[in-house]
């Protein structure tokens, strides 16, 4: 909206990162906070409604919920953690998948139009406060503190001189880059994707209203691209939710895995 009133001078001002700074609605509560609470309510109501009156042959709605749950349980948790120890972590993986999915899809729904993961704080909280401490906790519980560090930093079968170079690199990647990129991946995808949609939409509006007569039909091209990018954005949103849960399961599986 800031770009709109700046453009009244006749110059198109492309939106930058400031387009995501939304003012608080009341008492310091901002729109992403409300969307977060709404997504929790949606996911909880969805699964609670589907799990009432379970029968041997599920109804259509229960079947959809069971498909989502099976996807998180089989394709993500069991394949990445292993079939022996994956069961305690299935609720976490399914919850993270559906939670990130609903929050991402908020970017396309007409009135809401804000993917909450486009603010870096939300995926950072998921990654640094949930997945990363859980990874350490599981590893320390299974292998002990020294065993966990050794298991993560020292791959088996590596000659000693290579270890001098390998251990700092492994420590940097596993203790620093993995949690940060885990969060940055979904943040950057949502941020960049939503910014592309904003640019095409605002450019079409500027071309239609402010630009000279010959440029006005070009706004249709701009809006056609906005529609095309919306479909791409929908695919990316589902994919990013899948990858977030997949990598969380991967880190948990890495903490639990036995030496080969």
């Amino acid at each position, binding site marked *: 909206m800031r770009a709109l009133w700046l453009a009244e001078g006749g110059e198109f001002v492309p939106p*930058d*990162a400031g387009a995501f700074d939304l003012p608080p609605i009341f008492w310091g509560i901002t729109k992403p906070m409300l969307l977060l609470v709404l997504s929790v309510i949606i996911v909880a109501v969805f699964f609670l409604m589907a799990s009432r009156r379970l029968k041997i042959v599920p109804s259509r709605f229960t079947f959809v919920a069971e498909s989502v749950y099976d996807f998180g349980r089989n*394709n993500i948790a069991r394949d990445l953690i292993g079939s022996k120890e994956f069961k305690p972590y299935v609720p976490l993986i399914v919850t993270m998948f559906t939670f990130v999915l609903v929050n991402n899809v908020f970017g396309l729904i007409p009135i809401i139009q804000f993917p909450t993961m486009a603010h870096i704080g939300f995926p950072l909280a998921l990654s640094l406060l949930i997945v990363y401490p859980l990874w350490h906790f599981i590893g320390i519980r299974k292998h002990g503190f020294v065993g966990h560090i050794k298991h993560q930093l020292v791959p088996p079968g590596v000659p000693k001189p290579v270890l001098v170079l390998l251990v700092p690199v492994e420590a940097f990647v596993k203790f620093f880059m993995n949690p940060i*990129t885990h969060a*940055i*991946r979904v*943040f*950057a*995808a949502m*941020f*960049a994707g939503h910014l592309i949609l904003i640019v095409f939409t605002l450019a079409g509006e500027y071309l239609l209203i402010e630009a000279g007569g010959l440029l006005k039909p070009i706004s249709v091209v701009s809006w056609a691209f906005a529609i095309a990018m919306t479909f791409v954005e929908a695919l990316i949103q589902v*994919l*990013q939710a*899948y*990858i977030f849960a*997949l990598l969380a399961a991967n880190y948990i599986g890495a903490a639990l895995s036995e030496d080969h």
Partner: protein
Amino acid sequence: MSAIQIAQDVINVNKGLSLIGYGLGAIGPGVGVGLIFAAVINGTARQPEAQSKLMAIAWQTFVLVEVLALIGLVLFFIASSA
């Protein structure tokens, strides 16, 4: 605008340089994504039944490669506003 302000705007090349930096940084992930899906196409051509397994692996590795380009894009926004 005063002469000093115009001169300062002229020599502020942050936006341009950071855009060039992002463009160079997007070469690697572009090649990487092309290689991933070339492998998927080749594998599907040799054995069509393996398509679903190959596509699953392809999406998992695609996101790892794409994050490098996206980190570049985010850093462009950070560098161009500083």
